[in-house]
């Protein structure tokens, strides 16, 4: 099978591997051989720069002709043609091949079973405007099955697909859910702590190193411990039943399991004690496997001593544990979408399809955003037709309220309960979630004499000329890539310009024009690689230039002269084009973004694009709950990617909207009102805007105090360390709990053998 596509991920993958290698073994010399460095994603170029400058990863632009083994040293010799056309060879101890991705072997089988169409490379066939839709209605595709792609796109598509499916199923939502029932929670407040300790052998994992039975006997002597036993596997089902029995029999109100890590097993045991009627917050764990028996295998005595320390620490903390409250906050089931471009409209329609009300706020008096300037997609679909249909659907949708020519003035509230005030309107829009789809702006070049000569144009102006028939096919056209991208002022790749230029160049070439594309790397990732290949076939000439030696454009009597040094051909090309087309990039709408960022307390990255919660795993979320992100506001991207993101954002938002109430976690910050002095430093450091200052009456005096919104607090505790009178504290990790655990560490040292030794301690000083 022919693989005429780019696998989209290998360039970055190999960079990451090289970087990790360097971190683990800093003396390793790592070299990456490549043809075009396709660092097209958000912040990818910065990553490459860091790999190069901070870690010393070497990048070699080349074509490799041969790899052979040196029979003596068994080293591997690479022969390659360098950038300037010379042959070179180098020896390495290890060669890692950046292999591409291909469709799964079972693709055909799956396609047949579900009766969906595949493309020529056996990936699921989709279209630009329906990137998640297979050829058969009701069947959707997400992730690499519709083509190779990076993690954030995959994750976004997955959320988008869920949203699509949810739209179809919206009428039966929730009809098959059965809620697990728990016994009523036993109130243990004001009781003496009665702790049960279960020490796990974990087969021989713990028991083989730590003297488990001796720990059980010892722990019984600790204050408040009323029961202790050891188990072969504390996580087994029969032990869960045992734990429940013991809780009842010994009236335990705290449970400690000394075994593996709470990161994997805490939920299981919490569930168990919940089934026995105890709050899950009354559980504590001592990690005597991953952080003890496994790491001190050769000093069993010390491992046993450490296990005691860890268990004692757990006991000390356990005594202070409280059944924390989880609050329920009702959810307003309306979404607000900021931005009426393709992303905003798609997000709104998807939410509406799922049965939710949506308000769209658009600053212009027309929907469509940046897409209004575009005529065709890179793959040739008619944009205007699509846009017309889309706008029509939005405007007619009864679930969607449109606020065109509007801007946001003020925002109040939090996830589930936002109030957004538009400029000049008293009545706020009340909504539970919001999606930021404010788009971006086209870069207006200041370089290459743009604006000084009517034949120096940008890509969309070229497209207008093509459409208007101003191009005859006799012209010489030069395109310059990366105008306003990948520079010091705009250090990001605008992602779409290569493909767009390639497509326009092909169209020109087909008309007979002579086209030169001056580029730094051609980043036609994915199936767009076909466009690139096609362009070359059609005679488009691609000339590479370095960042330091950009093309030289001059004008003499309205004539344009372009000089560019080709590193491959090692000659200086001088062209006198009829048109100079600048592939201008995409820039964030910084002022607008900053305004919105402030209103909704969400961050921007240093370039001015919105910064998502996690670049790979939470591509359309913000750290602030209830606020989501889609489209160019996130970073430059193609329309299919924007649509997928829009649907993803809708899908993510719908998770909140589907709930009647939001249940907050118990481990959140809380304020002691009599200690609070209202200095507000806690609110200053809260990224989630969970802390605010309010006026309250305390002992007859009105004063400003901090207030925690349980729906927003994530329980990081950063606020607590700013509080001088310790008024704001964190449930589950309170100052008292932490300092008591510290006492647990040194408890043995602060013990006396008898009253006399205590007396001598006291009299000694």
């Amino acid at each position: 099978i022919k693989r005429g596509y780019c696998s989209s991920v290998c360039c970055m993958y190999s960079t990451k591997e090289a970087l990790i290698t360097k971190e683990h073994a800093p003396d390793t010399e790592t070299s990456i051989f490549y043809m075009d460095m396709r660092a097209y994603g958000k912040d990818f170029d910065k990553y490459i720069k860091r790999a190069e400058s901070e870690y010393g990863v070497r990048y070699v632009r080349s074509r490799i002709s041969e790899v052979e083994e040196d029979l003596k040293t068994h080293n591997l010799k690479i022969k390659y043609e360098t950038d300037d056309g010379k042959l070179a060879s180098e020896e390495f101890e290890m060669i890692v091949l950046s292999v591409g991705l291909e469709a799964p072997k079972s693709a055909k089988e799956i396609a047949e079973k579900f009766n969906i169409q595949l493309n020529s490379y056996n990936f699921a066939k989709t279209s630009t405007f329906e990137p998640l839709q297979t050829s058969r209605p009701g069947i959707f595709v997400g992730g690499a099955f519709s083509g190779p792609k990076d993690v954030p796109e995959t994750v976004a598509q997955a959320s988008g697909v869920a949203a699509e499916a949810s739209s179809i199923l919206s009428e039966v939502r929730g009809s098959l859910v059965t809620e697990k029932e728990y016994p009523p929670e036993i109130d243990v407040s004001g009781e003496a702590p009665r702790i049960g300790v279960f020490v796990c052998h974990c087969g021989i994992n713990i028991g083989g190193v730590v003297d488990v039975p001796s720990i059980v006997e010892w722990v019984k002597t600790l204050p408040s411990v009323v029961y202790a036993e050891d188990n072969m596997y504390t996580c087994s089902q029969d032990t869960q039943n045992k734990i429940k029995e013991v809780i009842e029999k010994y009236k335990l109100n705290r449970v400690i399991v000394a075994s593996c890590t709470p990161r994997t097993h805490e939920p299981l045991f919490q569930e168990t004690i919940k089934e026995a009627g105890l709050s899950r917050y009354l559980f504590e764990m001592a990690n005597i496997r991953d952080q003890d028996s496994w790491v001190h295998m050769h000093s069993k005595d010390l491992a046993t001593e450490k296990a005691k320390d860890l268990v004692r620490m757990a006991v000390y903390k356990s005594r202070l544990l409280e059944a924390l409250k989880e609050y329920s906050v009702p959810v307003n089931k309306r979404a607000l979408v900021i931005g009426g471009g393709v992303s905003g409209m798609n997000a709104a329609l998807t939410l509406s399809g799922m049965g939710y009300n949506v308000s769209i706020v658009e600053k212009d008096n027309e929907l469509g955003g940046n897409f209004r300037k575009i005529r065709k997609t890179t793959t040739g679909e008619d944009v205007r037709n699509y846009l017309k249909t889309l706008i029509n659907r939005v405007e007619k949708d009864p679930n969607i309220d449109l606020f065109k020519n509007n801007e946001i003035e003020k925002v109040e509230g939090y996830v589930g309960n936002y109030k957004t005030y538009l400029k000049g309107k008293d009545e706020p829009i009340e909504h539970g979630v919001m999606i930021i789809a404010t788009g971006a702006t086209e870069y207006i070049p200041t370089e290459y004499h743009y604006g000084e000569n009517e034949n120096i144009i940008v890509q969309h102006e070229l497209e207008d000329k093509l459409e208007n028939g101003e191009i005859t096919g006799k012209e010489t056209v030069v395109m310059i890539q990366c105008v306003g991208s990948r520079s010091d002022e705009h250090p990001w790749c605008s992602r779409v310009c290569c493909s767009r230029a390639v497509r326009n160049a092909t169209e020109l070439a087909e008309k007979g024009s002579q086209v030169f594309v001056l580029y730094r790397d051609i980043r036609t990732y994915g199936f767009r690689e076909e466009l690139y290949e096609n362009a070359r076939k059609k005679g488009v000439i691609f000339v590479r230039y370095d960042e330091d030696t950009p093309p030289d454009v001059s004008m003499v009597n309205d004539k344009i002269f372009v000089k560019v040094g080709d590193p491959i051909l090692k000659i200086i090309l001088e062209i006198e084009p009829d048109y100079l087309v600048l592939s201008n990039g995409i820039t964030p709408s910084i002022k607008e973004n900053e305004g919105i960022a402030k209103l909704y307390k969400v961050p921007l990255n240093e370039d001015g694009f919105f910064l998502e919660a996690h670049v790979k795993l939470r591509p359309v979320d913000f750290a602030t709950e209830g606020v989501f992100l889609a489209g160019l506001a996130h970073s430059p991207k193609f329309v299919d990617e924007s649509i997928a993101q829009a649907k993803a954002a809708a899908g993510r938002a719908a998770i909140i909207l589907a709930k009647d109430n939001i249940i907050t976690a118990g481990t959140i910050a809380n304020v002691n009102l009599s200690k609070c002095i209202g200095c507000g430093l806690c609110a200053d450091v809260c990224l989630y805007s969970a802390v605010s200052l309010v006026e309250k009456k305390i002992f007859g005096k009105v004063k400003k105090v901090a207030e925690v919104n349980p729906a927003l607090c994530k329980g990081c505790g950063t606020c607590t360390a700013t509080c001088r009178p310790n008024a704001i504290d964190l449930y589950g990790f309170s100052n008292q709990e932490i300092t008591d655990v510290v006492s647990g560490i040194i408890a043995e040292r602060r013990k006396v053998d008898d009253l006399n030794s205590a007396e001598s301690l006291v009299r000694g000083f």
Partner: protein
Amino acid sequence: MKKIPKAEFIKELSKWGKIFFRTDEGFLENNELSNRRLSKPPKKFVIPQEEIYLLFYRPEQKIVQKEIFRKEEKKVIFGLYPCDAKSIELIGLNFLKDPKDPYYVKRRESLLLVTEACTYPSTHCFCTSLGDSPFDRRGDIFAFGMKDYYLAEPLSDRGREAILWDKFANATEDDGKLLEKAKKEIEKSLEQFDFKNIHKILYQKYKDKIWDELAFKCVNCGACTFYCPTCYCFDVQDVERTNWGYRERVWDSCMFIIYSLETSGHNPRSAKMTRLRNRVMHKFAYYQTSYGEYGCVGCGRCIDICPVGFDIRETLKTLKLEAGHD
């Protein structure tokens, strides 16, 4: 009144206990009397800043308790000015009323207070304004330093038993005159404000708005209370260790907000002014009501030490003036 050569007096006293002399750095064993009023009061000899008084030990569930009494060696406090000697008596009014405070009692029993007539009052002294004198006979023994001799007389049983008084010659009439002359001179050198009936004015002015003005300067630190020779308030706190712990009392100050803060969060003296007012009232009115004595000896240390320039004399003067106008 006896006339005793200096060296011999010291020698005799040293038979009773270790002698601590008034020096610039406090009461030390180094045999050199300073010639100014000590910056710090002698109250630590009867109520140390920190007193651990109860130990407990918890081997299992049962608790073992033990009272802690520090062994007090016998000390001769030599050269105490009368005001400071009076302060120990004033503290005693509180600690000796029923039930007696055994810690004060034991400490006081171990002390022989040898008072010296005050011939170097400081700029902020005002004992005469309270009806006292720098030559008051206070403590167990009173002494008046002359060139080579002390004029001395015992004032208490402990003072009488401390040395063999009969060994020494009686003071002459001239000596007595000298002492009286010195007394008059020193008393005259002190500014006289006459606060002798200030308690009546205080009770009368308790609710007066003037207090806000009077207390404006005060930031409610505890410096005055800790430097006051008659302030005795203490806090009781437990310190816990793994299987033992102790209970101690430490100096406390009525100027601190936490002093009267109740567990519920309610504080009867939450405003800074009320705390200052309570302190002044306690010294010059409540103590008078309870014991017939002011809780102040006019040593002026609180004025010396106050970081914000609060002057109790000014305050009382203002109150007097205000009352006069009424």
